[in-house]
């Protein structure tokens, strides 16, 4: 069989950038991040159930600068996936489908993600994290 280069159909590179494609990719990326984070929550619960060294070890990991950075990533991912997920659920209900509405809801999700993530960390740090 001839093994020469076959022409490929145009892929992502033929499209001009739009906010919608970035938001779609971000929804999937944050979803993958949160699937990993789910095991972090299970680890937290197990550490509390076991107590003693387990909880001390968990707390130490979380309190380290790297732990805080990871936790901040999880927080931002969670907030983004939550708001963009609501956007998806509204689409499933047939709402907000016209192009201006899609752009408006997209920028709204980004703004809410920034504000709510900042608020969560403000209260968490004030609470003694």
């Amino acid at each position: 069989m001839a093994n020469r280069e076959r022409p490929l159909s145009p892929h992502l590179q033929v499209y001009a950038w739009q906010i919608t494609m970035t938001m779609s990719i971000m929804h999937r990326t944050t979803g993958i991040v949160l699937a990993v984070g789910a095991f972090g929550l299970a680890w937290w619960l197990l550490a509390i159930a076991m107590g003693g060294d387990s909880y001390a070890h968990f707390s130490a990991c979380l309190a380290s600068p790297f732990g805080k950075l990871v936790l901040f990533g999880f927080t931002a991912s969670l907030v983004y996936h939550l708001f963009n997920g609501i956007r998806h659920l509204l689409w499933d209900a047939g709402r907000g489908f016209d192009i201006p509405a899609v752009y408006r809801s997209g920028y709204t999700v980004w703004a809410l993600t920034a504000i709510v993530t900042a608020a969560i960390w403000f209260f968490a740090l004030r609470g003694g994290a």
Partner: protein
Amino acid sequence: MSDSRIRDLRTPLARARGLGSAKSGTEHFWWQRVTAIVLVLLVPWLVWLLVSLAGADLDTARAVIAKPWNAILLAIFAVAMFWHAKLGIQVVIEDYVHTRALEVASQLLVTLACVVGAFASLYAIARIAVS
């Protein structure tokens, strides 16, 4: 009914189910939405709970989680979260892993990991709640 020629090789049950060779219909879509709605309702509560426990010692964390409604909602959250994660990662694997053996292996691994995660969470919540 008097016409005895076979027009459809499917059994009456298969015809009633109407699923075809995919063997499943809207279950994946439906349960992804059901778990999404549960999570939309519970994530704000969970975030509030976690923020209130920021920097808490072990006894405080245990006492808060052991409260009946906190334990119940945490258990529901854990199940919905791992279920939703499994459904989502399943689609990612379907989209990007094109080697059949590797795909089946990753799907199995993700399913098992999520089942272990969910049961481990439920075990931990139960243990905290009754201690």
